[in-house]
């Protein structure tokens, strides 16, 4: 069904389609519209979930954990400080192998208080064992949320999935949305280690070094196995509903001499920059990274690479830039831009590409080349 919606409403629409048994959530700007819409759907009976209005994000994730381990589907949504407040429990959710799905509306971290888009919140969760996908349009927010449940619950994965959408520049932007009837696209959830009083087991108790080590490896093995599950899910989604997704969204990369890599809404802006540069005769392309975890195998060899990071690891560098450098064994032009909701236009991105200095780092709007 075609309609107009914000990124937040699109996520709530997807949740309504999937019908998780329990939703536990706490409000935070700019995610609030998701939980408000879910509460509305619950009140009208369109969504037959138990909605637990918890007193904190730490409790939101703890409640999802307690619910999920009984073998039922759960969902939550958060942003920024909320995500960091639940950090202990996000680790627990992954370690407990629970297919919880969470929408995170990317927002900067204080102080000072700043409610606008930045990826540092989710980036700080990158080592927890969660799968992470970053979206760029309202439609993609909807589609990725649907697929997240199937991927998380697949018995080769059984890890939680975080769907990331940029605060305000996507969460509050109205775009066309085509909702679908998922039918059997998402099979009923089966959790092999669900709690059953008839078969009593201990969960998460004391674990010695050898066993703990194996559990860690088990998470990594499933993370690796998730690659095939993601590919198969996106392929089936394209077949059923006609919209194609992949680990990256490539725009005119094939013959490009220079490729700009980014995540989220900046990736859409970058496509306009490519059109501008192509008119000038510059063979440029854009690669929008969709999945941060598992981190895909990229192929950027032989090209100049410009990486836009909407995040930073102090004392180290742009997290995306450093990840690409390490994986590709190449130098890149690392641009730090868009922090705290800083406006970055396609003209700016075109400039980053034109004036690139491979091997250097540039803080947009702060200073010259560092």
């Amino acid at each position, binding site marked *: 069904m075609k309609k107009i919606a914000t990124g937040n409403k699109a996520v709530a629409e997807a949740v309504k389609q999937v019908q998780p*048994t*329990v939703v*536990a959530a706490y409000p935070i700007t700019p995610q609030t519209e998701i939980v408000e819409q879910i509460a509305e759907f619950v009140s009208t009976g369109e969504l037959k979930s*138990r909605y*637990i*209005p*918890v*007193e*904190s994000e*730490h*409790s*939101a994730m*703890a*409640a*999802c*954990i*307690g*619910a*999920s*381990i*009984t073998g*039922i589907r*759960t969902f939550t949504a958060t942003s920024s400080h909320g995500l960091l407040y639940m950090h*202990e*429990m996000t680790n*627990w959710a992954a370690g407990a192998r629970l297919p919880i799905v969470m929408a995170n509306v990317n927002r900067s971290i204080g102080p000072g208080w700043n409610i606008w888009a930045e990826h540092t919140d989710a980036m700080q969760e990158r080592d927890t064992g969660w799968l992470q996908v970053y979206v760029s349009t309202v439609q993609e927010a909807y589609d990725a949320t649907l697929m997240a449940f199937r991927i998380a619950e697949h018995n080769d994965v059984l890890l939680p999935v975080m769907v990331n959408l940029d605060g305000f520049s996507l969460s509050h932007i109205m775009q066309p949305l085509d909702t679908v009837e998922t039918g059997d696209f998402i099979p009923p959830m089966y959790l092999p280690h669900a*709690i*059953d*009083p*008839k078969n*009593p*087991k*201990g*969960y*998460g*108790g*004391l*674990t*010695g070094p050898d*066993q703990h080590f194996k559990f860690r490896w088990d998470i990594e093995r499933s993370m690796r196995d998730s690659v095939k599950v993601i590919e198969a899910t996106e392929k089936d989604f394209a077949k059923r509903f006609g919209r194609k997704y992949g680990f990256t969204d490539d725009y005119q990369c094939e013959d490009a001499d220079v490729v700009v890599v980014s995540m989220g809404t900046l990736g859409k802006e970058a496509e306009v920059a490519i059109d501008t540069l192509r008119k000038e005769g510059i063979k440029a392309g854009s690669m929008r990274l969709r999945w941060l975890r598992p981190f895909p195998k990229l192929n950027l060899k032989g090209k100049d690479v410009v990486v836009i990071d909407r995040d930073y690891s102090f004392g180290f560098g742009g997290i995306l830039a450093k990840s690409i450098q390490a994986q590709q064994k190449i130098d890149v032009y690392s641009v730090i831009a868009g922090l705290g909701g800083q406006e970055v236009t396609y003209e700016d991105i075109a400039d980053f590409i034109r004036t690139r200095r491979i091997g250097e780092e540039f803080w947009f709007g702060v200073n010259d080349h560092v």
Partner: protein
Amino acid sequence: MTSITDIPKEEFILKCTSACAGCSDSLALRYVLKAAGPDSVLVVPACCTSVIQGIYPNTAFNIPVYNIAFGAAAACASGMSNAFRATGKKTNVIVYAGDGGTLDIGIQAMSGAFERGTDFLYICYDNEAYGNTGMQRSGGTPMGAKTTTTPTGKTDAKKDIDAIIAAHSPPYMATACAAYPQDLFRKVQKALTFRGPSFIHILAPCPPGWRFSTEKSVEMGKLAVKSGMWILYEREYGNLTINPQSKSAMKKPIPLEEYLAPQGRFKGIEAKTLEMLKQHLAKNIKKLLAEEAGE
């Protein structure tokens, strides 16, 4: 009054737990589980019980145990209870948490779960310090008690968690003591008949933490009640009933020194602190008697 013959023979705590000798946490839990029966799940935050259950892949508990982070037990149980009820299951969801996980780090999640009317039983077994990590002070440590972080004795009073719980108006709340297993058994059975949140606060004397010899755990619990330091009561929809064991003790309590003297943690307690403890104790007895009398 529950007779000892009313208590099922079925054991949910098997042999070979890793509890310390004389542990009254595991003694209490034994009766909690007998009362709750097999269709129950324990939610356990970091506490002595996380250790007592044994090391993976073994468990000494013949009941599902979900271990969760220190401050998250009530929230986790809240999700679990909602999930069970949403799928038509009546399984008891029981939080079994220490005083640190209840009075300190877990208080926010617990307050939230009580406020939301979660259908669960929250049990705090109180050994009045962080026992699992080697007896550091907690909000449950009484004034004057030495712990590893209050080497000269705690200067602050024990937090009145029962008053905080009462402020949430749960349908049922009670105190209990590991030294009175029949009373505890009855209270757990009763608590589980209520829909919504219920709370039981169990005093669990701890030989290594309180520094008394291991065979005296039950005796210590009885001295706590007889001296009026621990009062056994229950509140049903806000109506207080003081249990008979405490009723008689409150009329003529034994001297507080009889309870404190066998415990190394109170050794060398200052006269001033002892006096404050006595005053607090007398005030508490008066307050509860007045409440029961409807004054």
